[in-house]
């Protein structure tokens, strides 16, 4: 069973409907006792990094999520939810993230390597390059396109966490992961068969996990 963490930010409707179409069992909750019953968690998010971290702390979910990660249970961050898994962001002044993955969110430069202007936000369908195609999240998924909408991008010195990247004048970490901590910069539920395939894979990872418990 997947638990979707509700902390008051992000539109959950589409991800819920996508899980329903995949017949993956889920529930949405802000309550950490309820969420603790899940086999895997989704951390959604749209909006500003600082607002999200503040809400997660105010809701008393910060330590719960930290413990969850320390216990090695599956966690999938989506969009802003993925960025929160990293060390921090320079959005509206520096804000600390969870620090499960090495790297920092900073604003797109808005220029390509030749100095030509690129529009920010990075909005639309961009092609993915898989670096770890055998990763359980990418298994049997076509190396196609995903739909991105973001103005901040993760910069990491550790290529091991990059499962897939895109190119927008610089390297855009698109799918990241280390152990049971995973994330997608794009919205998988809005990224057609490529994104839906990854959601299906996360469902399988979580199901396997729940089997291991029994």
């Amino acid at each position: 069973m997947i638990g979707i963490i509700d902390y008051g930010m992000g539109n959950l409707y589409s991800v819920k409907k996508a899980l329903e179409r995949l017949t993956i069992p889920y529930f949405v909750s802000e309550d950490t006792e309820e969420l603790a019953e899940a086999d895997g968690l989704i951390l959604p998010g749209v909006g500003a990094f600082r607002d999200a971290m503040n809400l997660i702390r105010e809701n008393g979910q910060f330590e719960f999520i930290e413990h969850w990660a320390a216990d090695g249970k599956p966690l999938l961050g989506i969009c802003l939810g993925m960025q929160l898994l990293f060390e921090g962001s320079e959005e509206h002044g520096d804000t600390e993230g969870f620090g499960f993955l090495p790297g920092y969110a900073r604003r797109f430069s808005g220029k390509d390597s030749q100095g030509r202007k690129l529009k920010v936000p990075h909005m639309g369908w961009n092609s993915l390059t898989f670096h770890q195609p055998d990763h359980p999240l990418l298994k049997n998924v076509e190396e196609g396109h995903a739909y991105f909408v973001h103005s901040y991008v993760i910069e990491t010195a550790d290529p091991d966490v990059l499962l897939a990247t895109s190119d927008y004048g610089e390297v855009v970490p698109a799918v990241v992961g280390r152990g049971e901590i995973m994330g997608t910069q794009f919205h998988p539920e809005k990224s057609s068969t490529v994104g839906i395939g990854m959601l299906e894979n996360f469902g399988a990872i979580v199901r396997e996990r729940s089997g291991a418990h029994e």
Partner: protein
Amino acid sequence: MLTKRIIPCLDVKEGRVVKGTQFVELRDAGDPVELAGFYDEQWADELVFLDISASHEGRKTIIDVVEQVAATIAIPFTVGGGISSVDDMRNMLRAGADKVSLNTAAVKNPELITQGATYFGSQCIVVAVDAKYDESIGSWRIYTHGGRTPTDWEVTDWVREVTARGAGEILLTSMDQDGAKTGFDEALTRTVSEAVDVPVIASGGAGAKEHFVDVFAKSGADAALAASIFHYKETSIEEVKAFIRERGVLVR
């Protein structure tokens, strides 16, 4: 790299899809939810729904349409038409729309753009701009109310104003080309693309596959929107994409 987007537009009236040529003649082209699923399968990159219902009852049906569409497809979509308050925007986004498009209400009350961008983020706020060339100002003039009412805004001034207020995308319709099927308005699209840093969706005038090559290669559009040529199967999105890909335009 980022690809160019092809976006079918569905004009919805009282829950049914219709398409007007030159904003006057309307024909019925079907069920919005079914069409949305069809276009998703055809590799549409995104969808736009414009609610042109005249009645209050008609307007309420669009929320049901949005919910059903969001439950059916796995690509982003925008809803516009008659959105005139923060509550309207919230209702659409909660129902599963990814973006809302403001037009007349944004001209009447530009503060609405600022509020929408603040509450929901710039990425959800599209401003739809209906522009018509006006010799007396040597540029394009902005119209509201589905192209019926001229305003005092010149297009470059207006798009700079809306992006300064936080609009995340411009849906630019050429009233001169709309329904004419002789190609997108390249001069207008180039003018707007150069004036702002946000993505620009060119709309109005698509009548053949070649027109999509032209609008991407010559005018700097990030996306192109069309309705009747797709609704009446004069061509398909897959055909357009194959055609423009062969001519060097990056598509999904």
